[in-house]
């Protein structure tokens, strides 16, 4: 186990290094720089001074090593679009709306999806199953911004029940949270259904029923518990995935969160902020998969990490 953990951590470090090098090269090959304004051009001397101040005049590998040295000390530099603070301070502000809305979506979507999946599995091939499968197919295939647009059109434009965009009062949170909840609901509806059906078809369930255990106990004490394992594996990666989803939801609902800052950093060529966001989410994904694998091995004694994998 320890050997496995060390190997995984090393592989995460390697991935992180490769991704950061690739990103750094890409970021600096973007045509145009942050100080190339066309409407109020800086003089050559002023530009050179600013470039020197931010270290943009040095060779790329030195810039990279300096940057990574900072990153190891949690110093991601200063965002060009808001030079009065550090990247970490800006992100400290920006993650609140994303977490409230994204977390709300996941917290609502997960139980809802699991319920739908269980209902679908228990009522296989009835209209309940078809409705649940329909919802999960729609949620998984239709892009988030299309769902958001339809929500806005129906509830904000035509029915005029809820505000269409903004951040602040909880009333404005409802539509984005529903938009965020679409993917967890759909994912869990599908996973819960197939995990339940898998377990229901196992011989031990037949034995339980044959010995006369009430169906309620069969489902709640045995089938649900045994189907929970595959469902655990999706949770963390999906939760981190909402950070990516925030790009569209926040652009649609005009919420000043991580996604919105990422888009504006792309538009303003704000390298430090872009790098910091992509690197952070990459690391979070790495650890999400890592933790998931370990938790999975703990929950399921059939899996042995590192050595032989029994399937």
């Amino acid at each position, binding site marked *: 186990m320890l050997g496995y953990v060390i190997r995984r951590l090393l592989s995460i470090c390697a*991935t992180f290094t490769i991704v950061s090098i690739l990103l750094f090269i890409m970021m600096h090959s973007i045509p145009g720089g942050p100080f190339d304004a066309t409407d109020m051009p800086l003089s050559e001397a002023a530009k050179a001074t600013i470039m020197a101040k931010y270290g943009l005049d040095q060779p790329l590998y030195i810039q990279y090593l300096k940057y990574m040295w900072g990153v190891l000390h949690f110093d991601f530099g200063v965002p060009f679009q808001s030079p009065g603070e550090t990247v970490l301070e800006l992100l400290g502000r920006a993650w609140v709306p994303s977490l409230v809305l994204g977390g709300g979506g996941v917290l609502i979507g997960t139980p809802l999806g699991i319920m739908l999946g269980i209902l679908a599995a228990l009522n296989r091939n009835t209209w309940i199953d078809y409705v649940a499968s329909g919802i999960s*197919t729609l949620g998984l*295939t239709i892009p988030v*911004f299309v769902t958001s647009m339809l929500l806005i*059109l129906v509830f904000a434009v035509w029915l005029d029940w809820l505000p269409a965009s903004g951040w602040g009062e909880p009333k404005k949170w409802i539509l984005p949270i529903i938009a965020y909840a679409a993917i967890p609901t759909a994912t869990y509806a599908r996973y819960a259904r197939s995990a339940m059906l898998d377990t229901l078809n196992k011989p031990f369930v037949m034995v339980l029923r044959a010995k006369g255990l009430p169906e309620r106990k069969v489902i709640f004490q045995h089938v649900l518990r045994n189907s929970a394992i595959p469902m655990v594996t999706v949770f963390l990666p999906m939760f981190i995935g909402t950070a990516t989803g925030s790009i569209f939801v926040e652009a649609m609902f005009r919420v000043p969160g991580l996604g919105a800052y*990422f*888009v504006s950093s792309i538009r303003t060529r704000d390298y430090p902020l872009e790098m910091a966001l992509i690197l952070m*989410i*990459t690391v979070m994904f790495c650890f999400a998969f890592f933790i998931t694998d370990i938790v999975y091995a703990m929950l399921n004694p059939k899996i042995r990490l590192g050595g032989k994998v029994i399937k």
Partner: protein
Amino acid sequence: MTNSNTTQPETKKTNSSVETTGTLPVARNPLYYAWRRFIANRGAVVAGSILSIIILMAIVAPYITPTSYEEQKFLSENLGFPSWEHWFGVDDLGRDFYARIVYGARISLSIGFIAATFSVFIGLPLGALSGYYGGSVDWFVMRIVEIFSVVPPLMAALLLAALTDGGFLSIVAIAALFGWVQVCLLVRGQVMALRNTEFIRAAKALGGSHQYVIFKHLIPNSISPVIVGFVQAIPLAMMLEAGLSFLGVGIAPPLPSWGQMINIGINFMFFYWHLALFPTLALAITVLSTTLFGDGLRDALDPTLKG
């Protein structure tokens, strides 16, 4: 090698003629069973028909639209609501919105198909090599796949699109860059499953080189996962294009892209809802029907892949 090529069609013929013998079990082409399974899946058939209608509309777009997508012929009816003359209304620049939506299908579908083709071109050889050789080749390919699984694809795609200033070709390249992984994994799985089967070992025992085994046996036998990977890459590429165009780094105006139209539609939605609704519906219907068609095809071609 030429010998095996010429004899193959004959064996197929004898296979299909077995049907007529009556008492013997009927042996037919596997594609026949795949077709039967596909036809039995009503959702997939409906999705496939809708998809074919959309493809047909995209092909004959100039004949079924009153104007081209960029002609500002109706400036006096600017922002007009849907009517008999303008089925989907007129947009903010005096262009027939129906024409723009139909031409939008061309952009969306062509990006989907071209990007999926390139995904196969990258994913098929990598998947076949890593599945066949295993060991360090497999390790190397899997590390690349691992990197792609932890980098947030949309963020990286946005960055790349900004880097290349968007445009048709760069969107296709970006979509292929993130689409090949699935094809690679599907092909790798199939090749690994086939690698130790008897006919492959027989081919090797008869002196078949690695190249011969891979190209003559393994890749032709991986055709189902390749088709599945291809069809499943299409909606992903379409969604990526729409998403990037929505955020303003994809297809630039005047070329019509549904994502871009949705973005413009937000500004008008409170008064001119049609500018937001129609591109949204067009995108949703196309992506949904392509995905359902792909899922149906997957279940039909290889029931073991069903997820």
